[in-house]
């Protein structure tokens, strides 16, 4: 056996003489974060004062939803609900502040961060749906930019899209799409004409957010002195006062040509 000793040592030397580290193997496994023990007291103590104050205001039930409302493409019930309430409430403010009326509402699905569940709606849920501090504005667009708006909408709308696809719009608009192109656009039942259009949207989108570049060369932008989230909160609370539930339907306001 002795004759094996020398080559053995030589190999060991070669194996371990060099000190630079090299990656030999890789492993990966992502892990679900689920309820586990033990509870760490210090973590609880950090959260506690924040949570207490927050729960006081957020756990109030402010309304009831008839069913789950979600975003979607070509249209979603959540987008329809919010665009429709923005048209009503936005125009109330627009009339009061500027003695004017907007033509329609355009928002973005990416801005709605979760769905509206069926049943009781807390103030906190509205904050989850619309966490941003976005303000409502009216953007007056030339007819050319208005056409671009509908081209953007048609291009982003797919038949059975994911959460972020599709572009929510108010119900006084009808858009028919073929091959990612708007082939028919009606605003209040009338085809687009060669005049400027007044669009209610958020300051975020008016500044070109979500690549809405057609908003970047407006004729004018007017503030409505109202946050989008406050508009949703007001609508839900007002429906509750009237003894009504929150609901919305799909009404083919955006549709694919047959």
């Amino acid at each position, binding site marked *: 056996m002795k004759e094996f000793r020398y080559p053995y040592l030589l190999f060991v030397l070669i194996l371990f003489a060099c000190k630079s580290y090299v990656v*030999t193997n890789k*492993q990966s496994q992502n892990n679900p974060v689920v309820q586990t023990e033990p509870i760490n007291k210090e973590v609880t103590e950090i959260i506690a004062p924040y949570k207490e104050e927050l729960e006081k205001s957020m756990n109030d039930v402010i309304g009831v939803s008839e069913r789950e409302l979600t975003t979607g493409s070509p249209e979603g019930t959540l987008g329809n609900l919010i665009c429709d309430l923005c048209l009503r409430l936005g125009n109330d403010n627009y009339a009061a502040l500027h003695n004017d009326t907007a033509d329609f509402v355009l928002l973005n699905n990416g801005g709605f961060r979760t769905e509206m569940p069926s049943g009781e709606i807390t103030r906190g849920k509205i904050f989850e749906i619309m966490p941003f501090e976005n303000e409502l504005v009216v953007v007056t667009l030339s007819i050319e930019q208005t056409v671009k708006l509908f081209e953007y909408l048609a291009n982003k709308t797919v038949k059975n899209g994911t959460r972020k696809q599709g572009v929510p719009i108010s119900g006084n608009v009808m858009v028919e799409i073929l091959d990612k192109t708007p082939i028919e656009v009606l605003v209040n039942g009338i085809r687009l004409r060669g005049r400027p259009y007044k669009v209610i949207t958020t300051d975020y989108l008016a500044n070109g957010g979500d690549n809405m570049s057609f908003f970047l060369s407006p004729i004018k932008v007017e503030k409505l002195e109202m946050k989008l989230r406050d508009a949703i909160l007001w609508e839900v609370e007002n429906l509750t006062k009237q003894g009504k539930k929150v609901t919305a339907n799909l009404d083919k306001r955006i549709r694919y040509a047959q």
Partner: protein
Amino acid sequence: MLNRRKFLQRSLIAAGMAPFTQEVVQEMLKSGEALKISILHTNDVHSHIDPFPDTHKRYPGKGGVQNRYTLIQKFREENKNTLLFDCGDIFQGTPYFNLYGGELELKLMSKMGYDAATMGNHDFDNGMEGFLAVKKHANFPFVCSNYDFSETILRNQTLPFKVFNKSGIKIGVFGIGIELEGLVDKKLYGKTVYKNPIQTANDYATKLRHEQGCELVICLSHLGYKYENNKISDVELAKHTSGIDLILGGHTHTFMEKAEVLRNSKGKEVLVNQVGWAGINLGKVDFYFSKLSKKRLNLSETNKGFVEIN
């Protein structure tokens, strides 16, 4: 000392004729011939401090900082050579952010022992002023390599890269953010200058590997996993750069079971991983290192070791 069977096995590995098996690596870990570096990571936690309620349709009882803390501690106990990163969009998504501006999120990340984070687009939601106002609650650095903040109030508030040393292994980390124009209101990011992700990533990967002598290079990215068009993403970044071992991602809220193995511009392996959003999952990637010389051992560039992405 190695017995003869083991010796023969090692010799075959050395000659590039046999793979490193799980068994061999576990033995080498025990004897100190190999080291394991564990990378834990999150992205797009979006102010989710509490777990989802048990009645939640999709994620009942999932997530929550308390549960994440326990899981992180478990992994740290398993391996002291563990690093923990976040890939941005720490802020925005629950009233905790609306009421406290991100203060609690950063306090808790500090408590959990995050080693570094990069900024996502939503971390600008309260403007750079809002970010700066709560940043003092973070005891870890923000690593941003392609946002040039030099003309803004965030000047010198972030790092272009950071090198960690775990049991003698140097781990270099840099951060690649998403284009803010068209995504974030200009008034929120002001005079921040956006630098090309691929060029920046290549520059820092080279710097970390060759100037800083890092054995492992990690990119914290908020570009998004991949897109239908050719917009820059983690997958594109992986293909068009070299010198990066691991790209940890965010933004697209992509749930991956495990890291994906891709090939970089030089044909070498690069891993890409992302763990959805809201702290529902905790990502984990382990790298096994040995002191064996690559050259003498005749390990090919893509190595003869197992890539057990299981």
